[in-house]
């Protein structure tokens, strides 16, 4: 591959650089999302300021300082805990997050590996985190953790389907499962002949976008679907016995996955890194920033819902997924198919 600077590097080096970048993005993305939305947006919604002192300017250093604090804490495990499983659970969650980032494109060439089944792969590996959650809940030797983990398992599996149905509509419209392909389809496409804004699927797949947002909210166990970590009942649910850097891993995994899902939503529905009239190497330069802006918008919507709504009870949550979201998803699929074939 060559960049604008005409550097010739081998395949191995390229892979190494890209992997390193992705590894750095996870904590960085978690930090940015956490600070902007969890610390600042939530505070302002609740008529308070949030951290102001650490780092001087509006407390930007707060989360980094928290990370540093977590790392130097004692590694505690409860008496009856299964040590190996308890240590492995955060790793499973983080690995699943990392694997998702491998297919998210930030520019025409800025993707670790553009798989032909990109979307399918992304959804598949993001479900690996369920295993991590179950491991955490069981190994913690704590009844609250177990309750939380069991709730999470049911919820995460149930909401895979609406997620999938939302995405299938996009795939039908784009004609490909590859994420780069979907971005190109949006940039170069047109809506009934009008093409100066391309074909962002949010306009034609509006229902799919909503479905995706709701299902992503549930996949991330965020209110209104945060029964597994219901703060006022279970006090962090399956994570309750985790302290120190293991808790940091969970936290990074949670916000990293939020970053990933927001990026996927931006890619699938908002056009990802693309702006309709920008091509070539300019796109490589602008791409990351464009994608970042779009994903921040999606994340804003997700976190806004998180801080406003109460939480649904577990059985109501399941009923909502199976009886409401899936039928709507299927209907959306039907309508999309009709439009695709007929027009």
């Amino acid at each position, binding site marked *: 591959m060559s960049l604008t600077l005409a550097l010739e590097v081998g395949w191995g080096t390229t892979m190494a650089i890209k992997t390193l970048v992705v590894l750095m993005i996870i904590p960085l993305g978690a930090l940015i999302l956490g600070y902007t939305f969890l610390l600042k947006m*939530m505070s302002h919604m609740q008529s308070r300021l949030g951290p102001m002192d650490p780092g001087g300017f509006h407390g930007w250093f707060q989360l980094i300082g928290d990370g540093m604090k977590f790392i130097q804490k004692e590694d505690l495990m409860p008496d009856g805990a299964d040590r190996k499983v308890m240590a492995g659970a955060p790793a499973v969650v983080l690995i699943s997050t990392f694997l998702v980032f491998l297919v998210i494109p930030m520019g025409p060439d800025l993707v670790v590996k553009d798989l032909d089944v990109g979307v399918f792969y992304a959804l598949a590996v993001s479900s690996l985190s369920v295993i991590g959650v179950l491991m955490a809940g069981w190994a913690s*030797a704590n009844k609250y953790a177990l*309750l939380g983990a069991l709730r999470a398992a049911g919820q995460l599996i149930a909401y895979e389907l609406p997620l999938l149905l939302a995405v299938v509509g996009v795939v039908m419209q784009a004609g490909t499962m590859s994420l780069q392909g979907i971005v190109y389809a949006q940039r170069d496409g047109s809506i009934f002949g009008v093409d100066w804004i391309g074909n962002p699927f949010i306009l034609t797949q509006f229902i799919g976008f909503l479905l995706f947002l709701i299902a992503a909210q549930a996949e991330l166990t965020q209110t*209104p679907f945060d029964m597994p970590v219901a703060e*006022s009942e279970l006090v962090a649910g399956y994570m309750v016995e985790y302290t120190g850097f293991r808790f940091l891993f969970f936290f990074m995994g949670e916000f990293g996955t939020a970053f990933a899902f927001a990026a996927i939503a931006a890619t699938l529905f908002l056009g990802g890194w693309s702006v309709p009239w920008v091509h070539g190497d300019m796109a490589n330069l602008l791409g990351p920033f464009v994608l970042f802006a779009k994903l921040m918008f999606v994340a804003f919507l997700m976190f806004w819902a998180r801080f406003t709504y109460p*939480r649904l009870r577990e059985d109501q949550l399941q009923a909502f997924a199976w009886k409401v979201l899936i039928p709507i998803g299927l209907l959306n699929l039907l309508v999309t198919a009709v439009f695709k074939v007929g027009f």
Partner: protein
Amino acid sequence: MSTTETPAGVPSFELDRNALRHLADAQINVELDTGDMILNLGPQHPATHGTLRLVVRLDGERVLAADPVIGYMHRGYEKLTEVRTYPQITTLINRIDWLSSFANEVPFINAAEKLMGIEAPPRATYIRTILTELSRISTFILFLGEMGLQVGALTPAFYGFRDREHVLNLIEGATGGRFHPNFNRIGGLKDDLPWGWVSETRSVMKMMLDSCDQFEDLVAGNEIFHARTKGIGVIPGDIGTAYGVSGSNIRASGVDWDLRRDGEPYLAYPDLDFKVWTHADGDSFARYWVRLQETRESVRMVLQLLDGLPSGPVMAKVPRIIKVPEGEAWVETENPLGQMGYYVVSKGATGPFRCKIRSASFSNVSILPWLLRGVYVPDVVTILASLYFILGDIDR
């Protein structure tokens, strides 16, 4: 992991599983005969409003039986009142229901005044009523926000605390204390109102009405809140009264009983024109709704009181050392949490001989073993939040 041992003395949670057969998923559990789990909610727990401990026996997520364990905050008030003088007791009883402390003092002072045959001057009576209603507003605004928190919405709780500050500032302006005013004296009040307090109160009351509207939009109108609270924790009216449940809880079950209107006349309530709100359902949403309406009603009452505030002294003539003549008096009032009553037995000394404190939350919480059978764990939290008890009120 599940344990089935019963600590000594605790009644065994033997339950007729056939009785639960009508519940859809209980059918499966009965046939599978899965083990039960004993879970300890508390005493440190975000849902239990303080140091209440609920030992629940769970079958999956369903509660089979619940046993509240109280007493973590027992301070021995009734023993203490036997060795304190009346003014000293006034300081003590502020701390029974600490969110609406002014309202705790009123029935006790009324009982002492009844025994002595003293009547507080009308201005003092009006100011006492205003401060009681202000403490009712402050505690209910907090409830409106904090019940949202228990159900999962993080933001309304902050609004509740923020709006409550205005009322606390008013109480502090008048009495010098935000939480524990200690303002009542036998025969009247410690002091008169400061300059400008009345107009400040009027503007704060306008703010409180806006705040109620905001809570109605944000919480009471939210579909998820409805799904979490409607039909949850239904208390039938007759069972509620047999347990001694009082206040907004019993009015939400359709029992039209408010001591401000129906009990022995006290304070300035006979002069006021107010509506008693009831709701027919008796579930958690009804309790929320009733308290929302009562907050608005309290605001209207405060405005009426401010309009009719008489002038005059705030303290009647009382001797320096207060010796209350022999006798017994029972005074009950409609406190924010429910019916609060003092049965004061005096033998002519400077302090009571026996002072039975009837606190509202004690009876409100005693219905939990009956109420929590067969509900889900998240519903336990909703029910606890909707009953709105204060630990100091339960444990005294």
